């Protein structure tokens, strides 16, 4: 389990200025750390699709935003991420909770459709399913930013 202080350390290393989020029960445990870190602002949305549009505005304004939502929110986000990433070419980056991915015996359609959904959008992604893999987040983010490509990191989660 990745802790709040651990994720914040990584986000600071990435130079993230704003986290635009709607949490799930895993990501939600990071709230205290995300909301109390100098130089990092937490922006709460009411539906996940909002997060991509806000992140687009932040990016155009010179900030370094990160979208943080659950995979169910990815499903909700379709038109908004389509517009920001593919119409306007804004290289947004997201950390997405991958529900039930650590429990293969679970019957959860959220797990079934997450990776196919990303592939259908043509969005490249990495999976961080253990704390030891957390440094891959910054490495992947930096490579995406350097090449002006969008990217997603899926955070492994247990059964809903």
């Amino acid at each position: 389990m990745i802790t709040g202080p651990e994720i914040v350390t990584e986000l600071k290393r990435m130079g993230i200025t704003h986290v635009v989020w709607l949490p799930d029960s895993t990501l939600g445990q990071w709230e205290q750390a995300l909301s109390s870190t100098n130089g990092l602002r937490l922006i709460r949305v009411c539906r996940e699709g909002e997060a991509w549009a806000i992140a687009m505005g932040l990016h155009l304004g010179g900030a370094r935003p990160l979208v943080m939502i659950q995979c169910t929110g990815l499903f909700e986000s379709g038109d908004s991420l389509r517009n920001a990433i593919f119409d306007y070419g804004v290289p947004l980056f997201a950390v997405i909770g991958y529900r039930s991915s650590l429990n293969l015996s679970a019957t959860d359609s959220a797990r079934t459709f997450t990776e196919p959904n990303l592939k259908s959008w043509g969005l490249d992604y990495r999976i961080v399913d253990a704390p030891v893999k957390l440094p891959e987040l910054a490495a992947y983010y930096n490579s995406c930013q350097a090449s002006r490509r969008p990217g997603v990191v899926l955070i492994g989660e247990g059964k809903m």
Partner: protein
Amino acid sequence: MPLLESLKVLHAVRTDRQVVVPTMGAAREWMTLGIHPLDLVYAPSAMGQAPLLGLGIAIAQPDRQVIVMNGDGCMLMNLGCLVTITAAAPRNFVLIVCDNAVYEVTGQQLTAAAEPARPGALPVDYCQIARGSGFREVHEFDRLEAWKSAVGGVVAARGPTFVVLKVEPVTGGAVPKSPAPAPQRAIDFAKALQST
């Protein structure tokens, strides 16, 4: 009031430091008045997301006022965004809803909030929704002269500010077209925003 005339009122007081993000019918008509480097004409759009795009800009650029012009159909598609906006408390943010009660660009079908679409139901009041969502400043104008008299003060007030302009549908009003390739416009807009 006529949509274009209502936009001319805003256009007349708009300063060179202000960002304007128009979408749908407002985008189409706003472009006829000329395009400023700090206009981000939100076409193509994700319907319902213009206020959030403007919010992101307003948060990143707190010393610059951001004015979003939304349609009522767009507003209905994402009413929750009003709460998202006020939670961020952007004092430099103005959201204008051009309310013509129809989906203009698809052929003027009624929205669910239009009175004729709600027989026997109570009317929808966008201003009440905005007040209940925590907007500091809430205004509604259905006459051009009143809008003209108030626009300076409305735009200058500490936000977040919510404005409804009751406008007439534009006959034959088409979907707004991107005035140039959208990715390049985004790059140009960001440069203008970050360099002025």
